[in-house]
């Protein structure tokens, strides 16, 4: 039973990772990030319930807050990019290389 739950959350996590790695649009990648964090939250909540550990649940709350902060920062950066008139797209970010 635990294995099934766990494998789905890890599957979700790697889906998020795939989104971040494969997708070209930055917003989609941001979503992928949030997916990864939420997948971890699900597994953390499940395990906290299993080990009946209150501290883990508090951790989930904090992780959610941190994820939000992350999203805010991500959005700000992407908005900045768009304000410059550049495509919010990976291929636009080729300037720095070598």
């Amino acid at each position, binding site marked *: *039973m635990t294995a099934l739950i766990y494998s789905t959350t890890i599957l979700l996590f790697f889906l998020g990772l795939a989104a971040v790695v494969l997708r070209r649009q930055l917003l989609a990648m941001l979503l992928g990030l949030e997916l990864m964090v939420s997948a971890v939250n699900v597994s953390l909540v499940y395990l906290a319930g299993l080990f009946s550990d209150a501290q883990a649940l508090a951790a989930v709350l904090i992780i959610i*807050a941190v994820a*939000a902060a992350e*999203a805010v920062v991500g959005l*700000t950066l992407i*908005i900045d990019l768009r304000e410059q008139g550049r495509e919010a797209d990976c291929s636009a970010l080729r300037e720095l290389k070598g």
Partner: protein
Amino acid sequence: MTALAMALDAAFTLALLLVFSNVNRWLGPAPRHEGDGQLPYETGMPPIERAEGSMAVAYYRFAVLFVVFDVDLAFLLPWALSRPVFGAAAATAMSVFVGLLLLLLAYLWRKGVLECKR
């Protein structure tokens, strides 16, 4: 028992997923225009960029601010429920927390972030 529930739940979500993403294709009319059907009338000019423009930037700013202040609510809830247990210590902690938020709000207001100019 819960395994069956979980399986059903998974199946149900998958089914919903499939239905929502494909219902318009099933119900709607088949896309008739092909080839030059996409082109504008003979006098129109070909579109320069995609139709749906970007949302005004200002709206994004408010969305971000909403996220920042809304998430703090997540911390108020457990504090409210457990206030009788911890008493004074929790009170001061939460007041510091809220005080910081107010300082942030004051700072944003002072900086004129909240006005909604075009």
